[in-house]
């Protein structure tokens, strides 16, 4: 007799920030683009560097490395353009990453209550346990004005 187990595979984009890898649901990713000129102007929102122009759209650039790694990225190879939810509204946000990204299909383990708010879940890939990011809490916005108290969290556990 065989027991059928239902495994719900989901698509994720693996991204690299420094030496660490993180994942974002593929549904949230618009595209991966080469770095372009960042236009800066005065503002008071932490973690926002400025904006880039992409296909006629003005996209804010949000560096999440300081929250996730505790330090700013010294090099960046791409901008991962993700869709950020603001209530019922959706907008693009560009996240600088240091390496190429990879699309994988795996099962996600749900986050627990003890996980940081920016953790949407966990997944296992290539012997690593990788943090799935919740960009809605990781990047600033009216519902979640980003504060310096954002938790630095261990994301990748090497087994």
């Amino acid at each position: 007799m065989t027991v059928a187990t239902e495994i719900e595979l989901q698509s994720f984009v693996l991204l690299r920030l420094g030496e660490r890898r993180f994942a974002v649901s593929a549904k949230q990713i618009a595209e991966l683009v080469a770095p372009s000129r960042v236009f800066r102007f005065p503002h008071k929102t932490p973690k926002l560097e400025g904006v880039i122009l992409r296909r006629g759209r003005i996209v804010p650039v949000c560096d999440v490395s300081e929250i996730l790694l505790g330090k700013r990225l010294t090099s960046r190879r791409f901008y991962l353009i993700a869709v950020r939810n603001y209530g019922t509204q959706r907008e693009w946000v560009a996240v600088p990453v240091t390496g190429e990204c990879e699309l994988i299909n795996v099962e996600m383990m749900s986050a627990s209550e003890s996980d940081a708010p920016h953790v949407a879940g966990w997944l296992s890939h290539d012997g690593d346990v990788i943090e799935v990011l919740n960009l809605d809490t990781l990047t600033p916005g009216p519902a979640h004005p980003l504060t310096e108290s954002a938790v630095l969290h261990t994301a990748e556990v090497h087994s």
Partner: protein
Amino acid sequence: MRLASSVKPGTAKTEQIILFRVSGQLFAVSSASVQEVRGADSMSGAAVEISAPGIRKVQQVVRRGDRSLFIVNGAMHFGLHAAEGTLIFVLRKTRTALLIDGIEKMTTMTRLQALPQSFCHEERQWYRGLTALDQSVVPVVSPEGFLSPEELNLLDAALLQADTNAAGEIEETNSAQ
């Protein structure tokens, strides 16, 4: 996937704007919002000093009949390096006279994009939105965003206090004479 349109409704028509600099940073303002452009020296001659707690960006006020115009230092407002302003924009339907470095040019804006929601602090009051011009992005300032109602109340209170002090001094001088 459908994304919310970030173009403000009704902004398809063109709008005349003035590009200006504050501490080297480029900004835009609707030309319809600018009532007058004056040299800083000519305006400062008629200005009196004012000091309101917590509002360092306003140090002078100009009286025009029963109306007071507060001269806002643009560099201090935006948190930029202090620069010596040379021009003043008197902004229509406000009590703000904005001190700037200079005018870059006048041009036409065809599209005003709302400030992305990621920007969630004071800048939402500062700017009407952003516009792309010549492969560059320029913030379009909101004339009402330079002085909040709370700041105007504090400035009015400081002005009243200054008037009371001046009246007291005149009375003392007259008594002495």
